[in-house]
């Protein structure tokens, strides 16, 4: 078990900068999830930590020891690959034992470890089978078993659930969470699926185009996204974004002029810059939009209602053709074609400036979650 520190880690393939000055501190026993759209560098970052790619410059420290030039086993990591990459000609037993044998362990120790690992992952009855005789979920467990048999300090997962079907994915997700609970080892997990990220992580690292957008607990990321990118990436359906003009207001924080809603005051420390800096983006989560049936045909038209059983999504068409999503309780009193006016609680409004950065809340309104995020 070990803590991990990345200090200004860079990776370049030729002239392409894939990882750009990434720094972070991962504590012993933490479950960290790297999440981001495809091509954001999350897998590359994992491979840098694993030692499968070399770091162009910057430092990678495990337990305060610089490990840039060490091989994966010397770093004490185990890795689960996306395609599992089991050795197809070896039985489950040999797959799990391979790394142990290479580490020149006693035959008896190898046997004990393999059987212990297999028992932990409920692979007891399958030890003599070849990978091709296993189901997807079983292969997945063998891959995890192979990674943890050497009792590595850090376990890495590279999109391990993407080859499983939906039902198995939920089940395996649960198993991985329970495994982390039991082993208590540091785990780093890469996924593009935000549900996996939200459910598994102690802390999530959101990556975009090779740099870190935000690091925080799932709750921090959801409630206080640091940028428009994070706000749009975390949460389903996506946060609604509306172009607004904002103005600083000494008394209330700031005032924003919202098309089709009107003027609202937000408790955010907005400061107008030069030029077009009054332009800002207002972000409101679908569950924080409050629709009210309109009486005289003003407001927006409901173009679609999605009924999901426990809740319903209303899709409203704006004048510029963009859609707004609004989450309501089911059964919903609204119908397609109806016109509604919208409002929201100013406490749940997010404002992003010209560069997409979140406008911080006023001191007296700072949410506890955000305060915590600042210290950690």
């Amino acid at each position: 078990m070990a803590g991990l520190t990345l200090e200004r880690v860079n990776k370049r393939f030729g002239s392409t900068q894939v990882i750009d000055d990434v720094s972070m501190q991962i504590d012993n026993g933490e479950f960290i999830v790297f999440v981001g759209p495809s091509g954001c560098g999350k897998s590359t970052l994992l491979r840098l930590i694993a030692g499968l790619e070399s770091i162009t410059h910057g430092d990678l420290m495990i337990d305060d020891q610089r490990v840039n030039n060490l091989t994966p086993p010397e770093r004490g990591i185990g890795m689960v690959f996306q395609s599992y990459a089991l050795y197809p000609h070896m039985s489950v037993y040999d797959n799990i034992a391979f790394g142990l044998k290479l580490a020149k362990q006693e035959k008896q120790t190898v046997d004990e470890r393999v059987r212990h690992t297999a028992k932990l992952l409920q692979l007891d009855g399958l030890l003599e089978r070849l990978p091709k005789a296993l189901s997807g979920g079983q292969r997945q467990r063998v891959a995890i078993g192979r990674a943890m048999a050497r009792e590595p300090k850090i376990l890495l997962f590279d999109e391990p659930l993407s080859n499983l079907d939906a039902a198995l994915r939920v089940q395996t997700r649960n198993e991985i969470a329970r495994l982390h609970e039991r082993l208590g080892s540091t785990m780093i997990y890469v996924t593009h699926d935000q549900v996996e990220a939200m459910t598994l992580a102690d802390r999530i690292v959101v990556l975009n185009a090779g740099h870190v957008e935000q690091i925080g607990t799932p709750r921090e990321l959801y409630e206080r996204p640091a940028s428009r990118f994070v706000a749009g990436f975390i949460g389903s359906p996506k946060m609604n974004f509306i172009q607004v003009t904002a103005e600083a207001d000494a008394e209330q924080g700031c005032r924003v002029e919202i098309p089709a809603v009107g003027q609202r005051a937000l408790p955010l420390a907005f400061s107008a810059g030069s030029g077009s800096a009054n332009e800002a983006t207002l972000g409101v989560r679908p569950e924080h939009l409050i629709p009210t049936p309109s009486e005289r045909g003003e407001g927006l038209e409901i173009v679609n209602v999605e009924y999901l059983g426990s809740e319903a999504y209303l899709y409203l068409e704006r004048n510029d053709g963009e859609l707004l999503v609004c989450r309501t309780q089911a059964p919903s009193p609204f119908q397609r074609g109806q016109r509604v006016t919208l409002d929201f609680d100013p406490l749940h409004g997010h404002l992003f400036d010209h560069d997409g950065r979140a406008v911080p809340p006023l001191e007296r309104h700072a949410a506890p979650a955000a305060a915590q995020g600042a210290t950690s």
Partner: protein
Amino acid sequence: MTLRRLKSIALTIGFWLLVGVLVLYAIFPFYYAIVTSLKPSSQLFEVSYWVDSLDFSNYVTVLSQPTFLAAIRNSVIVALSVVLIALLLGLTAAWALGRVRFRGRTTVMMIVLGVSMFPQVAVLSGLFEVIRTLDLYNSPGGLILSYTIFTLPFTVWILTTFMRQLPDELEEAAIVDGASPWVTLTKVFMPLLWPAMATTGLLAFIAAWNEFLFALTFTLTDSQRTVPVAIALISGGSQYELPWGPIMAASVIVTVPLVVLVVIFQRRIVSGLTAGAVKG
């Protein structure tokens, strides 16, 4: 209805006729060699397509010649050595060319391919000098060296192609498990490349077993000859007599091991030639 039936029958007959012609075309020379080898020398020049009586005198003649037995031994040594060396070098080269990224990889592949395009005769004199310099003239070593030169290009090419089809993550998993390149190659890749290795090994064996020109040029004494040369040099009682019977018997003897090998490895070859075509 009957017309369609007739048509399908005609098509079936035509198909099997075509198969028959092809099989006859391919098998007949070998079949005729067997038939000839089983005739006593007095009946050699009577044309007949069936074996009337079994007469093994030709086989006895051939196998009682110590030079022929020595030739078989030489052939086995040379062919097996060529296969082993070619597979070892081919496998390691294929790992480098198929797995390691380095500048000039394509160039190396092209040069390897280019070397295999030279006709044997073109390099004969040069190679002769090399063999003389290395003091390998009239020894199996000279043949092993020269055959390996001609076997390696296709061994490397075929194995490289197969090596590239193995998923990258497999190698990375081995690296994470702590395997050195050599362990990865022997413990992970080699078992997966068996079909390809059987195929290339067999092709290398056949090439070395049947080669004539180098074997004739680089050996001098009967004791160092390989089978193809030995057969060509089987002589009769006088210069006007070509002993067709013993020659045919000898040919059959040296062809049978090849046929047996091909039959044994047949499944491997087929799976080797198509492996990786479909994701498994």
